[in-house]
C-alpha cells in the first residue's frame, strides 16, 4: 500500500496536500493581488489557477476562515 501511494505521489497524480491554512492564506493574497491587477474582483477560478490548487480545495480552505472552530483539527496539524 505504501508503495502504491508513494508511486502515485511521485507521479504527481496525488498532489501532496498543502494544509488548508496555507491554501487559505495564499488564496487571500492572490485574490487581493489579482483584483488590483484586473480592476475587478478576482474569481475563484482565477485564484485557483494562480496558486495551483483545485478550485474546490480553495473553497474548502476558505471555509476555515468562515467559521473558526470548523476544520480546526485539520488546520492545526
Amino acid at each position, binding site marked *: 500500500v505504501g508503495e502504491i501511494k508513494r508511486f502515485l505521489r511521485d507521479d504527481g497524480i496525488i498532489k501532496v496536500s498543502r494544509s488548508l491554512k496555507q491554501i487559505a492564506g495564499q488564496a487571500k493574497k492572490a485574490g487581493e493581488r489579482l483584483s488590483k491587477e484586473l480592476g475587478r474582483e478576482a*474569481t475563484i477560478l482565477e485564484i485557483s489557477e494562480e496558486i495551483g490548487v483545485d478550485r474546490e480545495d*480553495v*473553497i474548502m480552505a476558505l471555509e476555515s476562515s468562515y467559521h473558526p472552530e470548523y476544520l480546526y483539527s485539520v488546520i492545526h496539524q
Partner: protein
Amino acid sequence: MENTNEMMIEFDSRSCNEGFARVAVAAFCTQMNPTLEEVADLKTAISEAITNAIIHGYENEIHKIRIECKIVGHDLYVTVIDHGKGIPDVKKAMEPLFTTKPEMERSGMGFAFMEAFMDEIAVVSQPGVGTEVHMKKRVGCGSSPFA
C-alpha cells in the same frame, strides 16, 4: 439543456453539518466562476436557512435537511428543505426582526440576510409538514462586460 447541472445533498440536522453543507454548495457553484464575495454571500444565506431548519424546524431534534441545487446558465437555484414544524404565517416570519426565539443571536434577521445576499427568495411552508426556502442568485457575471 446543455448548460444545466444539478446536485442534491441530504444530511442530519446537526449543527456540525452546517460547514459541510456550505462547502458542498460553494464547491458545486465554483463551475460558475464566482468571485470570493459571491461565494461568501451564498454561504451566509445557506447558513441562515440551515440554522433555521435545525433550530426552528426541528427544534434541535435530529432529522434530515435537504438542499437542492441547480445551475442554469448564470443562475444558481438553491432550495433548503426540512420536514419540521413549519411556519404558520410566512409573511410575518420574513419581516425583519420578527422572531419566535428572541433569546438567539441576530434575532429575527435570518430571512432579511437571505433576501440581502441572494437575488430572489420564496418561502413555502405548512405547519406540521415542513418548510422550503427557494433562493436564486446570479453568479459569475462579474468578468463579463455586459454583467
